[in-house]
Structures are given as C-alpha cells and as structure tokens.
C-alpha cells in the first residue's frame, strides 16, 4: 500500500499509531486479562503492561517498516524496474533455481553422512542421539511431503486428510505385529498396499469434486478415521492407543545385548544407538525410494497425465484420458507412501495413539509441500528442514527466559509461530521456494519453466 508520493514523518507516525490502536483493540481483553481458576470460580489477572509492550512493539515495527518501504519506493521511482512493463506475475528471478542443483547434492551428502557428522561433532554415539533423532523426524516429514507432492504438486488435487493414510499405515503395522506377530519387513509393503486401498476407497467418490470442496471432504475423511480410531476401542485401544509394538530388527536380527543380537553378530560392542542409526538409514532409504519413484513417474505417460490434469482437466478428457482413473492412481500412490511412512513411525515409536494423527499434521505436511513449491522435490526437502527443524531451534533458545523472565517456555510458542509463518509464507512467496517446473522431456537443453505459466490445479 505504498503511496506514489513520498510520505512525511507525520504521515508515518499517524499510520503506525493506527496500527498500534488496532493492535490495542485486538489485545483487549484476551491479553489484558488472564483468566485463572481460583477458589471461587474464575479470577482475572490484569496484564496491562504486556498490552502496552505489545502495542509499542507494533508501533515501532510499523515505523521501521514504513521507513524502509519509503526508501525502497524512492529508489524504485528513480529506476523503473523492467518488471513494471509487464504484467504483475511472479516473474522475479528464482532463488530456488540456483540453489536447487547445488542444494540437491549438499542435501544428499549431509543426509547420507549425518550420523557420522553428528557423532564426530558431539563426541560419541550417545550424545549424537538428539541430532540423529531430529534427522529421523525431518526425514519422515520429507517422505510425507514427497508423497503428498504426487497428489497436490503433480496432480493438483488438494488433500487435507493426508494424515489419515499415515494413520492407516501406522495402525496396520501396530495391529498386524501385535496380533499376528508379523515382522516389519512383511508389514511394510502390506501397510503401503492397505493405505493405497483406503486411498482408492475414499478417493473414488470424492475425486469428481473440485477445488476447496475436495479439500474439505478429504479433511472430513481424515477426521472420521481419527474419530473411529478413538472410539473403536476393541480394535484400536481407543485414545490410549497401542503400546509395546515390536521394535525394528536388522533384517531379522534384533538390536539386543545378548549373543544373538546385532552387536554380537557383527562383533561390535553393544550400543542402543545402533538401532537409532539403523532407523535413520531406514527412513532415508524409504524417502529416497519415494523420490526416485516420483522422478521416474514424472517421465512416464501417467506422470504427464497427472500434470496435464493439473493444467486443464477438460482438455485431458478431450484427449481420451480417463480423468477418474488418473486421479485415483495419484491418490492411491500418495496414500501408499504415507502408509510406508506410517508403518515406519509405528516401528520407531513403539507406541501409537490417535493423538499423533490430528488435522494439524495434515496441515504441516501440506504447508511443507506448498512452501517447497508445488511439484519441486528439492523445494519440499528444504521446506521440511525449515518447518520441522526450525521449531526445534526454539527449544534451544533458553537464554530467552532471561529476557522474558522465569517461566518463559519458548516451546509454547512453537505452533503460534508456525501459524504466523504459514501466513507470512503465503504473502511473501505464494508459489513456494522453488516455483519453476522442469519439463519431463525436451528436444534440446532442458530449461525450467517459470511458475507464472504453471497452473495449480482445480481440485
């Protein structure tokens, strides 16, 4: 909302004052009074100082922002940018494009050697556990992001219930292993197949819906599955979940301290970290498998049909492409990868409950795909690191409690900042970090296509 004329200081102050006033209005009474349960019902604790600090911060931020904007606008007025001549599309040079080539190898390199790096850096397998666990967490989301990318990024179908298939995979392993004693390596493909089957069952009726409606129906299905998991106590253990799920084995060799265990067989000293490192490479392998499959599929007729579907469904039908089947394959395949990830989740945790499969998880996975840039594999990986690793940083900001006083737990603000980041991302880069599309086939040199041409799908 920059004015053409250069705003003077009074203007800026008045504008910032207005912002502070709105902030004040939003603060009362939610921030101004805290409700706490007292002996005689709820009691109010006034916190007007906090409100004043908050409004002052908004005022200061707005003044600074206006000053910076004024400078930038003045500079722009002197040198008309070439972008002004064309239409207002996201035509800016793409940061991601430069990053993607190098980033791919850097990412792969770090991912492959993380346990080694972490061990050397923190001086032992035990202390490295935190980093390896974080790596496992991030890779799980990378895999889920890549799986959802097939549905949202390639086929352009907005799925807000993706976590349901993750849950199906997790419960599939948990139930099969605790009831029938099946091993992880048998359950893994079964979980994928089972999730894919659910994808088909849920997908079939809804895939003719378009846009937001599809998003809401998938959200409803996701919630239905979660509620059934909570309430069907006989099968799923209800809200208490399923515990003592068998741990992962090294292709049949358990990670135990006795002589049939992994350490003894391979002549190593027993360390509980072996299992963690194994799990790390397991999820890395699964994630890379997802990536490889997606990259290959993009060059197959089915992959091109997905992208064509995202671009124009009616034209697809006029070219003899059965849109229902094509959508269904995308949906089922995405679900299958979620199923794999789910059974990994359950073997890693050893305990699952419906708590882990809330709508928030779906939102996080979707945010990863969108922030990464729909359809871009590298972008999704970077976004997963940022979205999952970033909040972890908050845990380590202990010094903040020195600033804000005792009892300040930065971790409490994790989701709050997460929500804000989602909004900021959309305002700043709605097409994601890497918005270019690389063609699946070319006659000459493969050149990326600007995001401005690429459609985002209708359903």
């Amino acid at each position, binding site marked *: 909302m920059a004015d053409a004329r250069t705003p003077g200081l009074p203007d800026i102050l008045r504008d910032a004052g207005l912002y502070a006033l709105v902030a004040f209005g939003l603060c009362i009474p939610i921030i101004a009074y805290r409700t706490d349960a007292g002996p005689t019902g709820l009691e109010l604790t006034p916190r007007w100082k906090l409100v004043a600090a908050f409004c002052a911060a908004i005022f200061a931020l707005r003044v600074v922002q206006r000053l910076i904007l004024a400078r930038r606008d003045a500079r722009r007025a002197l040198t008309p940018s070439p972008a002004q001549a064309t239409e207002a599309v996201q035509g800016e040079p793409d940061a991601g494009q430069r990053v993607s080539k190098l980033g791919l190898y850097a990412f792969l390199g770090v991912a492959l050697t993380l346990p080694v790096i972490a061990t050397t850096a923190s001086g032992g397998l035990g202390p490295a556990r935190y980093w390896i666990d974080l790596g496992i967490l991030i890779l799980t989301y990378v895999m889920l992001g890549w799986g959802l990318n097939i549905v949202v990024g390639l086929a352009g179908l907005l799925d807000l219930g993706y976590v349901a298939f993750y849950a199906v995979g997790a419960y599939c392993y948990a139930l099969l292993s605790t009831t029938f004693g099946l091993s992880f390596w048998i359950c893994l493909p079964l979980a994928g197949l089972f999730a894919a089957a659910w994808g088909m069952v849920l997908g079939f009726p809804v895939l003719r819906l378009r846009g937001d409606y599809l998003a809401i129906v998938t959200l409803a299905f996701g919630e239905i599955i979660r509620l059934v998991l909570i309430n069907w106590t006989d099968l799923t253990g209800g809200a208490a979940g399923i515990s003592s799920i068998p741990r992962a084995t090294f292709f049949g060799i358990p990670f135990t301290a006795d002589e049939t265990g992994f350490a003894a067989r391979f002549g190593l000293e027993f360390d509980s970290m072996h299992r963690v490192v194994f799990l790390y490479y397991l999820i890395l392998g699964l994630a890379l498998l997802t990536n490889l499959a997606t990259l290959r*599929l993009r060059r197959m007729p*089915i992959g091109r*049909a997905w992208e064509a579907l995202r671009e124009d469904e*009616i034209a697809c039908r006029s*070219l*003899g492409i*059965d849109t229902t089947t094509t959508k269904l394959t995308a949906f089922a395949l995405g679900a299958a990868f979620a199923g794999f990830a789910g059974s990994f989740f359950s073997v890693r945790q050893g305990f699952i409950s419906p708590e882990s499969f809330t709508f928030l998880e779906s939102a996080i996975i979707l945010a990863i795909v969108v922030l990464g840039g729909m359809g871009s594999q590298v972008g999704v990986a970077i976004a997963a690191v940022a979205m999952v690793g970033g909040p972890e940083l908050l845990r380590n900001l202990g010094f903040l409690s020195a600033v804000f006083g005792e009892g300040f737990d930065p971790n409490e603000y994790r989701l709050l900042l997460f929500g804000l980041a989602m909004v900021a991302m959309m305002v700043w880069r709605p097409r994601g970090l890497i918005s270019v599309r690389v063609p699946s086939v*070319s*006659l000459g040199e493969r050149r990326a296509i600007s995001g401005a041409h*690429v459609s985002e799908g209708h359903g």
Partner: protein
Amino acid sequence: MTVLTPANPKTAEKIAVGREAVLSVAHLTMRFGGLTAVNDLSFEAKAGDITALIGPNGAGKTTVFNCITGFYKPTEGMLRLAHADGTVHLLERLPNFAVNRTARVARTFQNIRLFPGMTVLENLLVAQHKPLMRASGFTVLGLLGLAGYRSAERAAIEKAKAWLDRIGLMERADDPAGALPYGAQRRLEIARAMCTDPVLLCLDEPAAGLNPRESAELNALLRHIRDAHDTSVLLIEHDMSVVMQISDHVVVLDYGCKIADGTPDEIRSDPKVIAAYLGVEDEEVERVEAEVGIGHGEAGA
C-alpha cells in the same frame, strides 16, 4: 487403468462400407431447463470431407459440438460414428473421455485449452497417452526401465516432431505452451488433437482471432489433414473465407434448427441462409423466417 477394449458390442455393429457418412446426427435435441438450444437436428458428415457447421451467434453450434464430443449428454437423438473398418459407435452412450479414446473423435476449443505450463512437446506427448500407456505396461513395466517403453517414447517424440514441423513450431518445442503467440497456440491445439489419431476432428472456430496470413496457413493445414490423413473434419466457423474455400459440405443452423445443408455454392445462393445469416435487416429476417416457418420461440445458446 482402464484396459482398452474394442468397441462395445452393444454400441457397435457392422455396416456396409462405401463412401459413407463418418458421423450421422439424427434428431439431436438438447434442452437446458426450459431452453432448447438444439432442436431436432439431423445431418451427416461424409468420410474424407471437411464439413462446416455455420450459423449466427447463439445458433447452438457449440452445443452440437459438446454433444458430439461427449461433454453434454443430449436430451434426445442419436449420434452415430462409423470407422473405416465398419465399426460403429454411438457417441451419446460413451463416457466423455471414451469419445476420444474409443470412438476416436478429437476436438479443439473455442477458447484455447492447452496445458500452458507444459512445453509444446509435452503437450503433444500427453495427446499420445493411450499408445504410450500401453507401451509402458500401464506404468509398471515402464518404471522398471524396459526397452519397449523407451522405443515407444522415441516413436511418440518422432510423431510429435513431424507435427511440429508441419505447424512450424519446431524451434519452440521446449517452450511452455502458454508463452506461444495466439496463432501458434491455435495450430498447436490442432496438432495436439491430431496426435490422438482421430477419425473425426472437430474444430471450434479455428480461425477466430487469426490474421489473414495465419488464416491462409490454417486452410492449408486443414486441407493437408483431410488429404494426407484418414481424418474427416467438422468445423464451426464464422470466417466465411475459410468456410467457403475449404469446406466440401456446409450445414447451416439458426435457433437450434437446421435451415440449409449443401455444398458451399448451394449455401451461398440459398435465400433462407442469406436471410438468416448473411446479413439482412432484422425485420426482413423475421419476415423471411415467417415465410419458411421458423419461429423465434425456442432459441438460445
């Protein structure tokens, strides 16, 4: 994946082969609520001909097209498509996508529908979905990287290149389709439709928005399609220079009814057509129409 089956025995029957009608439309009626867009229309398009469907705005031409290509299900009537080998398909009974896949009717759209974010080459490959899908063993074999699929893809690219050469877009094969100029997009859409090996190609106002030079190129392209491929053409057009020069047969619609049917020369001299279409005063049109017994009552889209 839907396995490609030969024409459904229920909808297919053998017919005597000759210079037969590739498409026969019989008693086609399409109503939207109370509005009758097409009213009891019957005509035929002969194999190997370019048939033009003309008529003033709102005469129901695009509705006829949407019925033929399966986007609308007609309220009444029969749409019969005959292949050269004698198989017959009843288009009104086929699901939308099967009109192209099984009956091999391809179409273009009045407001171009390319895949703007995909390259020109990719657009032409998407059109060869059916043969490529089969060659890739419905993705399963292709994923394993078998040679059969790779050679099929090479063949598909060769076919696409031949069409790119024909429409003069070889240089721009790797550009996104959305970045092409308007005339090139029109030609690409026709080439894309041709990549599905159609028996009948339906073009919805292919010359709209083209300059005279592009229009002449289009005429040449359409003649080439008729002469060098086993494809008959059905087109909607407002540009009379295109219609009169290249069509072998013209059908005139007004208010959803057929008012004339014949060679371009016959149409040119038909008083009903002149009255209804080629520009007469409004009152005079009404007078002429009253004479030939066509009312204004049920008209539209």
